[in-house]
């Protein structure tokens, strides 16, 4: 495979001025980022600061209630800052520090990547600017407040759909302006090479732990691994070590929004076509004129018209099955997990739970499903309250 490509997907579709800084990052990632010393330092932080390894928890009540397969939850929600995002932020911000960068920029949708990056910047003493769509600023207020407390500057983006896509556009513009001092810490497995590969690398700690844990607990591989997919970082992170085990079915669940109609969902791999956005060739939701459409999902973290290029490849070769959960299905799953297990999931992760709820009853009692519980739901309580009323 060509470097930076996953089959026909990926590449570097960026303005020329960004090419040298991307190449610098690529070089730093493959030398510093791959060195034993760096990994040791990163693991120290992941373990002692972020709280790794996270448990693989057997959701006994939920499994019994559904009456089929055993459901295990990979508890990324227990990490510092409340989601898997910290795995990647610590990795990239530590790398930026080693590269001598002084200023970090990042985009955020639900606010989880923004909070994680602001946290890593506070810890490693770097200036931090977070771009966030104005709509997301409104619907994820507690996270905005958290970022401010952590010392980051949050810039609301009032353009286009005022969501994640527009926040990425604005972060890219900032980067074009400040290439010499700044590193862009992308929060998902999207963007130009080396981001999709690097983000997968930093997130694959989820899958590596899961594989070890399930072998220890059950002595065998799971039948299915399920994760939600926005840009796809938690999904690629848990899938990565399982890809070579063909007997394990991998399922990615996208934001089905209100309906399959273009503009009413964020299910890029289910309903999109191949296109180019934010530096990579991948599946994309756009209209007949090539204009990227505004998406809808109840979950801000899934509300994005693109998807990481490796997911497009995994779809094309048929290794991962991609499906979607609608807003109301995610809400039902949100409630059910809260009530049966006392775990309030992030609305993003609730999409993955929704798929498990559909599949488990049809499976045998000795079969195993693992769901990546990528984040906790405290940040979503405002949305849930609005929705219920």
């Amino acid at each position: 495979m060509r470097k930076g490509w996953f089959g026909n997907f990926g590449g570097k579709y960026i303005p020329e001025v960004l090419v040298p800084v991307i190449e610098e990052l690529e070089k730093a990632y493959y030398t510093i980022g791959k060195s034993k010393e760096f990994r040791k330092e990163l693991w120290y932080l992941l373990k002692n600061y972020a709280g790794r390894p996270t448990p693989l928890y057997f959701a006994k009540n939920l499994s019994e209630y559904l009456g089929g397969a055993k459901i295990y939850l990979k508890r990324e929600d227990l990490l510092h800052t409340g989601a898997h995002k910290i795995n990647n932020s610590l990795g990239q911000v530590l790398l930026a520090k080693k590269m001598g960068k002084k200023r970090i920029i990042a985009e955020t949708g639900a606010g989880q990547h923004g909070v994680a990056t602001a946290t890593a910047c506070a810890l490693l003493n770097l200036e931090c600017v977070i771009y966030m769509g104005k709509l997301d600023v409104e619907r994820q207020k507690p996270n905005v407040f958290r970022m401010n407390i952590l010392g980051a500057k949050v810039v609301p983006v009032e353009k286009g759909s005022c969501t994640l896509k527009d926040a990425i556009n604005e972060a890219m513009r900032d980067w074009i302006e400040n290439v010499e001092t700044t590193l862009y810490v992308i929060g998902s497995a999207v963007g130009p090479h080396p981001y999709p590969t690097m983000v997968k690398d930093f997130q694959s700690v989820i899958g590596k732990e899961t594989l070890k844990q399930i072998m220890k607990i059950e002595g065998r591989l799971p039948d299915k691994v399920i994760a939600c997919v926005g840009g796809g970082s938690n999904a690629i992170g848990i899938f990565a070590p399982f890809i070579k085990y063909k007997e394990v079915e991998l399922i990615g669940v996208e934001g089905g929004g209100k309906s399959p109609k273009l503009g009413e969902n964020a299910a890029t791999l289910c309903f999109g076509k191949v296109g180019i956005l934010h530096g990579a060739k991948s599946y994309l939701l756009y209209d007949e004129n090539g204009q990227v459409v505004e998406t809808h999902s109840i979950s801000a973290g899934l509300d994005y018209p693109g998807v990481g290029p490796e997911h497009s490849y995994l779809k094309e070769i048929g290794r991962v099955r991609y499906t979607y959960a609608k807003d109301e299905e995610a809400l039902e799953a949100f409630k059910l997990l809260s009530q049966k297990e006392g775990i309030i999931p992030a609305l993003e992760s609730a999409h993955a739970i929704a798929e498990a709820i559909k599949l488990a009853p049809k499976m045998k009692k000795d079969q195993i499903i693992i769901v990546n519980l990528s984040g906790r739901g405290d940040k979503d309580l405002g949305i849930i309250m609005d929705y219920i009323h």
Partner: protein
Amino acid sequence: MNKDFWDTFKKTKPTIVYLTVGFPTYSESVEIAKFLVSNGYAQIIEAGIPFSDPIADGEVIQYSTQVALKNGIMIDDVAKFIEELKSFRDIPVFAMGYYNPIYANLERNLEKLKKSGAQGLIIPDINVEEIEAILPLLKEYGLLICGFVAPNTNEKRMKEIVRKTTGFIYLVSSYGTTGMRDYLNWESLRNIVQKVKGIENVPVAIGFGIKNAEMIRKAKEISDGAIIGSAVINAIKNSPSNYFSEIEKIFK
């Protein structure tokens, strides 16, 4: 096929004006283009294809493309714009836009643009690899492609870009998105132009930040042409009722 274009370019030292097709309206954008051409302010026109996510553009051009999108402008309208302009005066017109709208129906769009009389394409978010992949298609449709060089492009990459450029080299003047600037580092730009020319004597034009006649003159002094966009769009935006006289001020 590009030999004549290159020779004429270097001789003419054109001022290249970017216009967003459909801003403020379709018919006004045609009139503005005709005005620029007939008064000798522009020797080449860049016909801007609006896109929902223009990451390399500053506030002014972002605004104009949003208006154009609201006006329902598509690639077919851009082709019509080029056709109208070409029948008014036979000057080179390049279609400029981000890759996705072009890629969405690639062959159909290339055919449409060729039929309209477009000289070639300018795509700010395409990479050298992808240019390579579509060069045979561009050749088939007889369209030129412009390569971008930035202040931080290294020589190895510059060679690759120059080798694949069939149109002109678009030299990005400075870091940052499109938009007017007060100052450009002419000395360092002169060096970059010389480096490019050392690889091959391809036409080079400088763009990003140029906002008045004085800067146009300076750009032409050290390269083969000047590209101006935001200043013109800004004049249209700020003076919806008398933009012709405001545009004139830029070039005088």
